[in-house]
C-alpha cells in the first residue's frame, strides 16, 4: 500500500494575525476562545485539506461587472484586481480557489441582512466571484470599486472600502479569510477590523495601485498578493542534519 505524503507546515504566525478578542471590534468579545489553543502534531487530517477537491468542482467567475446575467454592466468605477497567492517561501500556489464578495459602488451589499443603510442597490451587480489560480499562483478579477459603508460597532462607524477574500490553499491549516483594502483610504486608520491586525502586518492587507495593470480607456489596476502558511523548508526534526 503506498504511503501518504505527510508534509510539515510551518505554524500559523499568530503574531502576524489579529488576536481572537479585540474589544474595539465589540462582537469579538463574546465570540473568542478564552482557553489557550491546544497544540497538536500535524497528521494527515491537518496536512491534507479541502482545497484541491474544492478546486475540482469550482468554476471560474471572474468578471463581477457582468456576471449577474442581466446583460447590462454594473455601475461604478471599473477596476482590475490581480496578484498572486503565495506560500511563505515565496512559491506561487497553483490551482487554488480564490472566492471574493463585496458591496457595490455605493457601499451596499446585495444581502438580505443589509436593511439599515439607505444606499441604492445595483440590479447589475451582486458582488461575488471566484478565480482558480494559474500555474504561478496568479489570480485576476474585474470588478467595481466597492464603496465604504456604515456599521453599528460605534457611533458614526464606517468600514473602509474593502473586498473579502477567501482562500483554501493546499492544507487544512492554510485556510485564510481576509480583506483587501485600497491605498489612500482615509477610513483605514479609523477601522477597528483593519487595526485588529498587529501594526507591522497591517500594510499586507492594502493593495497597490499599479499603472502596468491599468488598461487604457477601460479600468484602473490594483495589485495584491496573499501569503499563506507554507511548508517548513527544513522539517523541525531534521534541523540538525
Amino acid at each position, binding site marked *: *500500500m*503506498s504511503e*501518504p*505524503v505527510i508534509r510539515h507546515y*510551518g*505554524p500559523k504566525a499568530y503574531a*502576524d*494575525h*489579529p*488576536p*481572537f478578542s479585540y474589544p474595539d471590534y465589540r462582537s*469579538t*468579545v*463574546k*465570540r*473568542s*476562545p478564552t482557553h489557550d*489553543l*491546544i497544540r*497538536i*502534531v*500535524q*497528521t*494527515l*487530517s*491537518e496536512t*491534507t*485539506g*479541502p482545497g*484541491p*477537491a*474544492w478546486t475540482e468542482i469550482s468554476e471560474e467567475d471572474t468578471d463581477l461587472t457582468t456576471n449577474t446575467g442581466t446583460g447590462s454592466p454594473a455601475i461604478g468605477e471599473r477596476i482590475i484586481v490581480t496578484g498572486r497567492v503565495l*506560500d*511563505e*517561501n515565496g512559491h506561487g500556489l497553483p490551482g487554488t480557489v480564490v*472566492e*471574493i*464578495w463585496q458591496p457595490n459602488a455605493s457601499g451596499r*451589499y446585495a*444581502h438580505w*441582512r*443589509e436593511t439599515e443603510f439607505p444606499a441604492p442597490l445595483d440590479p447589475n451587480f451582486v458582488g*461575488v466571484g*471566484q478565480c482558480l489560480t494559474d500555474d504561478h499562483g496568479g489570480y485576476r478579477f474585474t470588478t467595481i470599486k466597492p464603496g465604504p459603508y456604515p456599521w453599528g460597532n460605534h457611533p458614526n462607524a464606517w468600514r473602509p472600502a474593502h473586498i*473579502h477574500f*477567501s482562500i483554501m490553499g493546499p492544507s*487544512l491549516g492554510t*485556510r485564510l*479569510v*481576509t480583506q483587501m483594502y485600497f491605498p489612500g483610504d482615509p477610513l483605514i486608520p479609523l477601522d477597528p*477590523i483593519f487595526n485588529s*491586525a498587529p501594526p507591522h*502586518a*497591517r500594510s*499586507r*492587507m492594502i493593495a497597490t495601485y499599479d499603472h502596468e495593470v491599468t488598461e487604457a480607456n477601460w479600468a484602473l489596476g490594483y495589485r495584491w498578493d*496573499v*501569503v499563506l502558511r*507554507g511548508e517548513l523548508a*527544513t522539517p523541525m526534526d531534521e534541523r540538525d542534519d
Partner: protein
Amino acid sequence: MSELLGQTPSQTVGPYYTLRLFKEGENVLVPPGHPGRIAIQGRVLDGDRNPIEDALLEIWQANSAGRYRHPDDHRELALDNGFTGFGRAITDFETGEYIFETVKPGRVPDAEGAFQAPHISLIVQGRGMLNPVFTRIYFSDEDEANRDDLILRGLPAARRGTLIAELVETAVYRFDVLFQGEDETVFFDF
C-alpha cells in the same frame, strides 16, 4: 535560514459572507439513501451561551474507507465518486442550528503508525471572529477507538468530552461548539 514572507493577516468573514461562502446543499455531502448516511447537528454558542446566528462551519473528512480526496493521500483505498469530504453549513438565523449530512469517516493514520479514531475536522468562522477556530468532531459510539486516539489522549480528561458528538437517535449526532467558560470546546493549533 532564508527570510520568509509575512503571512497575510486573517480578517473576519463579516455578516455578508453567505453571498459567496454558502450555497444551498453544500452541507449535504451524500445523497438521500446513501449507505451509512449520518446527520450531525448542533449550535455554536457564544460566551453568554447565546446561539451565534451567523456562524460558518466548514468540515473536512476522509470517506468511509478512511481516505482523503487529496493529492497527498495515495493510499490504495477506494475513493467514492462525488464525495469530496468538504462541506459548508451555516447556522440558521432564527434557531442557531446547523446540520451536516454525510458519512462517518473511516480511520486514518496517526503520527505514530497507529490509527486515529474516526473524526471530522471542523473550521468555525463568523461575524465577530477575526480568526477561524479549528476543532475536531469525534463520535460517542466509538468508545474504544476514542480511548486509543493519540490526540484525545493528549487532552486534559475534563475537556475531551467537548469533542465528542453525542448519538441522540439512529444516525443523528449532536455537536455544539462553545466559546468561553469551563466547558469551552477544545480548539487546536497545529
